[in-house]
């Protein structure tokens, strides 16, 4: 078999079972693809020796029979996941040199299932960004290219998206606080699902905004997302917000039959100034689901326009609290201090040097909205509006809506550096269609369904009922079948 790195998880799994290929061969194919792809900036810590050892162990397990689905499949891991003995920096200077003594629950589950780690993947610093331009490692680059410009793979899981789209792994982990799985997936023509809040343990994942953060898979198609999500989910006593619910066999739920399902089209997602190609993509997707037998209904989610401002109170507030731990004392990087400097100067210099500009800005905005005199006006008000945003969704689900179809992003991928001089709010608008889902704790999936006018991939988002990822994946599967998106970026790197 050639081009083993281009296989999907399901294909590679089946080939391993049949003995057509070994995990070592799959892993070597990915490692050599990675070696030739430094221009993409996707991998920031490569772990080839670990990968080969894990692959050998997986091959032995497969030979012995009774190996889980993911056994022997090479994955990339977002730098936000703590991986034992392997640099885990959240793409921040402040965690320079940090090698965790422990393994995150999600990666533990993946590796217990026999998955192989190829290395750590680029991202926005502390997952704060929508273009992977805030990383201490430098930009990750989109493998899609239509002119001289280098394009963003999106963010914050930009390295994961780039690696999956360029076949530098079979699939990757991502995390999503406001759209960080779904937006980069849409920008790179891959599939990404953020499960219901509480499905995946957050233990060992560097925290950004704890009430919004969720891990999820970024894959080459919906079936792979189902396979990998199942391995990532499950109750964890070490995360008090992880749900003690049985995890279904998601792959077995992919029938493609959505006859009689009700799909809601929210009128508030028709944004002013939305490009015609996005409107068309959305209308086409609606037709596809209708043709597959779903009932299409117009719905209203009246508080949609307040989702981004709500997010930009809650996420920075939680971040300012979570990031207080980076003080240059227990781990990470400490600044050089001057003669006579005390501990406060040490903290202040360490955090000024260690955090990039966007992270500093968010920590300070969070500090402000939580400070005495403003807590009620900003933070408590935002938490109340969040209740209303969630209620919008509860109301439409109560009316019998099974899933909601929206665009995944307001545009195709933009050029790296193009947003540099824009005010921060312009960048935040990238998450306008995805952030509501985090605020309401719902599962959301981004599926590539077409190419835009310039030849760049575009994605649609499906939003499901809480805990019904299986049903959501099946609707996404039907959409994927109908859209028949198979385009891949042409190799230039």
């Amino acid at each position, binding site marked *: 078999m050639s081009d083993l790195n281009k296989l999907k998880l399901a294909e590679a799994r089946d080939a391993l079972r049949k003995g057509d290929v070994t995990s070592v061969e799959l892993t070597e194919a990915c490692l050599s693809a990675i070696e030739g792809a430094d221009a993409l900036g996707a991998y920031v810590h490569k772990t080839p020796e670990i990968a080969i050892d894990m692959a050998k162990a997986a091959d032995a397990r497969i030979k012995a029979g009774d190996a889980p689905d993911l056994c022997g499949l090479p994955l990339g891991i977002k730098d936000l996941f703590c991986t034992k003995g392997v640099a885990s920096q959240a793409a921040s200077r402040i965690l320079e040199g940090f*090698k*965790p*003594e422990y393994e995150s629950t999600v990666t533990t589950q993946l590796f217990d299932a026999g998955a192989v780690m190829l290395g750590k993947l680029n991202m926005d610093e502390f997952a704060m960004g929508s273009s992977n331009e805030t990383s201490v490692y430098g930009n990750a680059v989109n493998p899609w290219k239509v002119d001289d410009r280098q394009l963003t793979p999106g963010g914050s899981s930009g390295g994961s998206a780039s690696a999956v789209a360029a076949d530098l792994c079979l699939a990757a982990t991502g995390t999503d606080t406001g759209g960080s799985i779904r937006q980069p997936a849409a920008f790179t023509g891959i599939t990404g699902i953020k499960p*219901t*809040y*509480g499905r995946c343990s957050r233990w060992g994942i560097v925290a950004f905004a704890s*009430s919004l953060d969720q891990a999820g898979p970024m894959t080459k198609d919906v079936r792979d997302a189902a396979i990998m999500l199942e391995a990532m989910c499950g109750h964890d*006593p070490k995360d*008090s*917000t992880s*749900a*003690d619910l049985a995890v279904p066999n998601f792959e077995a739920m992919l029938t493609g039959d959505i006859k009689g399902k009700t799909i809601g089209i929210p009128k508030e997602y028709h944004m002013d100034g939305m490009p015609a190609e996005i409107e068309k993509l959305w209308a086409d997707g609606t037709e596809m689901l209708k043709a597959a037998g779903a009932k299409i209904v117009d719905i209203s989610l009246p*508080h949609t*326009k*307040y989702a*981004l*401002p*709500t997010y*930009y*109170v809650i996420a920075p507030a939680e971040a300012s609290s979570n990031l207080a731990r980076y003080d240059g*004392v*227990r*781990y*990470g*990087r*400490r600044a050089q201090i001057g003669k006579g*400097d*005390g*501990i*406060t100067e040490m*903290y*202040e*210099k360490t*955090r*000024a040097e260690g955090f990039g500009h966007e992270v*500093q*800005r968010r*920590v*300070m*905005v969070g*500090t*402000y*909205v939580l*400070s005495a005199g403003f807590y009620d006006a*900003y933070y*408590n*008000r935002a*938490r*109340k*509006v*969040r*209740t*209303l945003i*969630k209620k919008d969704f509860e109301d439409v689900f109560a009316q019998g809506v099974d899933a909601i179809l929206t665009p995944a992003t307001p545009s195709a991928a933009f050029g790296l550096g193009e947003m540099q001089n824009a005010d*921060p*709010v312009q960048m*935040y608008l990238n998450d306008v269609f995805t952030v509501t889902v985090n*605020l*309401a*704790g719902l599962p959301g999936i981004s599926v590539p369904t077409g190419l835009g006018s310039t030849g760049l991939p575009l994605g649609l988002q499906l939003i499901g009922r809480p805990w019904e990822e299986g049903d959501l994946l099946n609707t996404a599967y039907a959409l994927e079948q109908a859209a028949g998106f198979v385009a891949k970026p042409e190799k230039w790197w």
Partner: protein
Amino acid sequence: MSIDTETARRVAKLARIKVEDDALPALAQEFNDILGFIEQLNEVDVEGIEPMTSVTPMRLKRRKDGVTDGNQQDKILANAPDAREGFFAVPKVVE
């Protein structure tokens, strides 16, 4: 609500991030842009609405209040920028 240079300085201090004096006006302007965007929330009628505490309603699990972990001093200190004699070392705190 407009943030002036003094407020920006105070917020930076609270956040324990050193910001040089000449960077404060630009920082204050950035805060104003973001807070201007957030001000939209004042349009929403939140009378009688409970602030969200948990997005997926669930009862937090309880466990026995006992020691479940420990005795790994070397691992805990392994990533410290300055560890001495089994302690985290920091600049002088008390005069």
